[in-house]
């Protein structure tokens, strides 16, 4: 699927068809509704060594009788653990930091001066837009129980967040208030669409962007998040995705590729100088992505425990390994180790370790980083030029490919000694690799098809792209009436 998707000459019709087929195939495979969302990776933790893990359920049970009548199906009584809550409040701040200013700067530093403000503003505007959408209905669709349609999508129990009381938790994380869980998940819903903007940098209308992202969040992100985390059908299939390699990165990467294909190349692509204006901003951005990713990955333990600890260590190690790996490969092929290369490698490592962070040990993380750095180098530097699509800032090259590599390698390196919920090929469970690939195919296909349909709908109504003149003058002035002086 992945290789299909990267082929720009593949007819769009074929793509849509493949997607439809894969989806149809997927439906029967998931006909076990009402599965409680108990086994979502985000909650997994090795039960033995964490004494607090034992207590909360007990307390929760004790408290539940009184609170039960008003609780929605996805909810549970809060069994507050202040330490876990402290870490999740912090993690939420860290993941927000990834998008603003992290991703905003990472992308802004890579475009030409005339588009720097507009590029950063896309991340900022998406942050505001998704927050409101998530509070109104997005969270509810992704994380509540959808009843009959639970395998595919949640319900409206938390429409406008009503019922999210002070003594309630989500059943995925009973030791923290549901408000914290909801906001933490919100930051994931924010960064995913923001990542896509790298693919179509320098050419989408700001108004089209807002409409595209609104549709994409509700039609693509919320369902897929529900499948993987909200108790939907992918959970039941045993796909391992610790912190969102598939939901966030693969998803954003595939959507980016479709955007790049549908919008077409930038004016002057290949002939004009499109060198990044100021990579120092990109370096600040990549650094904040790195730091913030501790919240993303270690926060996905939804507790301040050994699982969070190992996720943080693995994140750090894989990221560093991938930065070095990209650097070395580039040094060999291009004679110089570029700064943008180190940054790109680091981000590739962060992406690839995301599904694996709470399943592998540090040597697994080291390998994942080394492999992801080299493969994403090939994706961003070679494949793109080979196939000729203009994925401007390599949303697909880094997040799509990195996400896929990470998902597969999670199937290779997962160890049950780290997390009882998952074991991979080196742990004697070679079948996990196929499950991982299956997860990639289903999510990737669905994402590609629906993204394509949304783009088409917009293209033939309000239009997606600025005019050629506007593109040449730059998005800062034409979309926002401002510029950097």
């Amino acid at each position: 699927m992945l290789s299909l998707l990267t082929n720009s000459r593949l007819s769009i019709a074929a793509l849509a068809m493949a997607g439809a087929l894969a989806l149809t195939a997927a439906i029967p495979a998931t006909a076990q509704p009402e599965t409680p969302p108990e086994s979502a990776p985000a909650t997994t933790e090795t039960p033995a060594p964490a004494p607090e893990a034992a207590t909360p359920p007990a307390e929760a049970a004790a408290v539940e009788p009184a609170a039960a009548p008003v609780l929605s199906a996805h909810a549970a009584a809060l069994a507050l653990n202040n330490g876990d809550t402290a870490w999740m409040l912090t993690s939420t701040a860290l993941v927000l930091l990834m998008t603003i200013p992290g991703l905003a700067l990472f992308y802004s530093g890579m475009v030409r001066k005339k588009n720097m403000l507009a590029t950063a503003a896309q991340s900022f505007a998406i942050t505001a837009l998704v927050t409101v959408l998530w509070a109104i209905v997005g969270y509810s669709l992704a994380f509540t129980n959808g009843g009959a349609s639970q395998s595919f999508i949640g319900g409206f129990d938390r429409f406008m967040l009503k019922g999210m009381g002070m003594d309630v938790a989500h059943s995925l994380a009973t030791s923290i208030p549901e408000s914290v869980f909801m906001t933490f998940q919100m930051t994931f819903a924010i960064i995913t669409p923001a990542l896509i903007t790298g693919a179509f940098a320098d050419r989408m209308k700001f108004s089209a962007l807002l409409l595209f992202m609104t549709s994409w969040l509700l039609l693509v992100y919320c369902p897929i998040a529900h499948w993987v985390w909200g108790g939907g059908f992918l959970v039941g299939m045993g796909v391992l995705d610790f912190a969102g390699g598939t939901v966030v990165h693969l998803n954003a990467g595939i959507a980016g590729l479709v955007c790049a294909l549908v919008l077409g190349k930038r004016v002057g692509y290949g002939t004009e100088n499109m060198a990044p204006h100021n990579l120092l901003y990109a370096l600040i951005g990549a650094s904040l992505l790195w730091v913030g990713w501790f919240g993303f990955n270690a926060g996905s333990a939804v507790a301040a425990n050994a699982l969070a600890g190992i996720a943080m260590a693995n994140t750090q190690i894989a990221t560093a390994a991938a930065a070095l790996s990209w650097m070395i490969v580039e040094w060999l092929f291009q004679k110089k180790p570029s700064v943008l290369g180190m940054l790109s490698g680091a981000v590739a490592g962060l992406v690839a370790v995301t599904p694996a962070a709470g399943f592998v040990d540090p040597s697994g993380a080291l390998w994942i980083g080394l492999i992801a750095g080299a493969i994403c180098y090939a994706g961003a530097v070679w494949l793109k030029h080979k196939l000729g699509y203009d994925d401007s800032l390599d949303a697909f090259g880094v997040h799509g490919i990195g996400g896929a590599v990470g998902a597969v390698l999670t199937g290779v390196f997962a160890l049950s000694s780290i997390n009882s919920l998952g074991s991979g090929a080196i742990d004697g469970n070679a079948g996990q690799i196929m499950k991982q690939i299956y997860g990639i195919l289903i999510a990737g296909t669905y994402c590609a098809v629906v993204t394509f349909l949304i783009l088409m709908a917009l293209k033939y109504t309000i239009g997606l792209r600025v005019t050629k003149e506007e593109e040449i003058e730059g998005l800062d002035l034409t979309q926002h009436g401002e510029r950097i002086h």
Partner: protein
Amino acid sequence: MKFITAIIKPFKLDEVREGLTALGVEGLTVTEVKGFGRQKGHREIYRGAEYAVNFVPKIKIEVAVKSEIADAVIETITKKAKSGQIGDGKIFVVPLEHVVRIRTGETDADAL
């Protein structure tokens, strides 16, 4: 009077300015420019996209002088700006008809 334009290497600016001051030149104007010539530029590579930058940073000095000292000025610039390496730059001289000092309204030689 002559209007002399010199393209030089950036790190030679201070030496040239001092040389000219010693000659009695009281003013000059400097612009950051990019030069294209025998001296080669450099290549930049960003994720596989390669850009050849053919232009080299240079400094342009413009100085208006009385005809009498024009030769001395040219000589001084030549001497001070020379590193002997390719890319040292050029001096261009055009005739200058008229000069005004804005503050005082003085003209021509008085204005220099």
